[in-house]
Structure formats: C-alpha cells, structure tokens
C-alpha cells in the first residue's frame, strides 16, 4: 500500500511538472517580453514615446512583411547581425526603449532574439524587450490584422 502511494505521489508530481512547464522555453536568459497586442496599443497610442523597433531575423521575411517603422539589422544569430545591432545603438542613450523581434519560427526555436537581446544587455541597455511571437510573425501578427509594411 505504501509503495502504491509513493508511485501515486511521484506520478502526480510528474504530471504537475508537465502541466506547469512554462511555454516560454526561449526565456533562458530571462528576456523581458512584450505581447503583440500590448505593442500594438503602444504603437497606436496618441501619447507616449514610441520604442525603437529592430527586426533581427531573416531579410527575406522582413521584405515580405514587417512592423511599420521597424529597422532591419540582420539576423541576430549571425556575427554580421550582432555587429549591425551594436553599431546601430552605439550613440543611443542606455535607457532608450528598444523592442526586438524576429518571428521566423516558433518562439522556443528562434535562433535570433536571444543573441540580439544579450548583445544589448551586455552593452548596458536597460529598457529592452522582445516581442513574444509564439508561433511566428505570420500567425501571431499578420493574420491577426496588426499593421504591416512591405519592402526594404
């Protein structure tokens, strides 16, 4: 009976563990995130300072659709992308509001946002967030009807 209860307890604990595992698996570096709907509210608000928006994913995806006003800096997973990012922020104040985004792949598979975020933190930036796109930019932004722009 006692062994049954032990097994029971272990199974329930495993089950609870599975159920409570956070979905934001890419948050290994404790990235601060912002939800798409919150960013849309910020961008469309009549008042308040707008954050700088940096796209750190694939150029091909950026050309197809990106957030209006966002700048393409190269894939965060590449040395060139990190270099572009560092160069772009070189003259900015460290408390500048910056939002990074990619959306190439599901959040926990994105190779770009982590290195880009880490770069800005390492450079001393204190007001950086990453746009949380659970599936990808198409599913979580474009198909929701949020504003997009095309081209370079």
């Amino acid at each position: 009976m006692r062994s049954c209860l032990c097994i029971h307890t272990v199974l329930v604990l495993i089950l609870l563990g599975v159920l409570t595992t956070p979905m934001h698996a890419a948050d290994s570096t404790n990235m601060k995130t912002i939800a798409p709907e919150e960013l849309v509210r910020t961008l469309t608000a009549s008042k308040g300072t707008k954050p700088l928006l940096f796209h750190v994913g694939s150029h091909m995806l950026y050309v197809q659709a990106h957030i209006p006003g966002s700048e393409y800096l190269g894939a965060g997973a590449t040395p060139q992308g990190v270099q572009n990012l560092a160069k772009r922020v070189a003259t900015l104040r460290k408390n500048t509001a910056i939002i990074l985004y990619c959306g190439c792949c599901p959040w926990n598979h994105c190779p770009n946002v982590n290195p880009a975020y880490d770069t800005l933190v390492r450079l001393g930036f204190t007001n950086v967030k990453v746009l949380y796109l659970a599936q990808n930019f198409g599913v979580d932004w474009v198909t929701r009807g949020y504003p997009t722009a095309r081209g370079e």
Partner: protein
Amino acid sequence: MKRALLIIAVAAVLLIWILLRPPSADNHDGTSSLRPAPGFTLTDLSGNKLSLADYRGKVVLLDFWATWCAPCKEEIPHFIDMQNHYGAQGLQVVGISMDDDEKPVREFQQQFKMNYPIALGTTQLADQYGGAFGLPITFVIDREGRIVSRHIGQTKPEVFEAEIQKLLQR
C-alpha cells in the same frame, strides 16, 4: 487499494497523453479549397530548371523552409524518407529555401544528402502562396496541380504520409 490503483492508472494515461499529444505548431489546415497551385520556374541548386508544371501528374509536397529554421530541419529527414519511399509511386518533394544566401543551403543539402530539388525562393513566389511570414510552411499538391492542404509549422510525418498515400491512390 483499488482506488489508489485507479488513480495511478488515470494519472499514467493522462501523463502519456500529455507527452505524446501533437505540438501546437502541428497545424493542419484541412479546409483549404482546391485552388490551383501557383506555377513557378526557378533554377535549382544543381543549375537545373525547376518548374512546378513539370510535375503535373505527380503528387507534390512543396516545402518552404530555411537552414536557420530548426523545425524545418527536423522535418527534412522525413521528407527524404518519403521521397525514397513514395517517389516511384508518383511523389515529388520540392524544397523552396527562404534563406537569404545560397551557401548555407548548399552545405545543408550536402550534409543531409537531400534527394529532391531545392531552389532559393523569392518574395514574389512566397506572395503567390499567401506569404511565408514564418516557417516551415508546406503545401500538398495533387496530381492535377491543385493545393489540397497547407501546413503551417512543424507537422508530424504521419500527417503528410496519410495525405500523400490517399492522393497517390487517385
């Protein structure tokens, strides 16, 4: 005692279901209308013409992917297997890489010994297929050149296989 065993059994079944359930990215849009697949002609990595029209009469699995896309890379070995297994019956896998550069695609192709044609995609082609704003996106096209389904995100190989087997019998 019986009650404890019952609870254990229920917990075990629930646990197995949670562990084996399909990922959220496994998004099968089975309601796609049968519209004609937009035609295209590109040059594949071997320098050969890659035209969708040349595959009329075959079932085509058209995969938009990229080397930086981890879920895409997980799907590709399955596509290689499918091409091996169903190629003689009329399946043709076609890869459209959305990479910005050809070099990593070529390296990946050699590393994985990809056995189907691959070409670099364009934004125009992606537009024709409704946009590739995130990858992978895979289309299953029937022998008449019509889009039967569109899969957004990583999809289980058995889902593709079930569709392909059905279409190959037609």
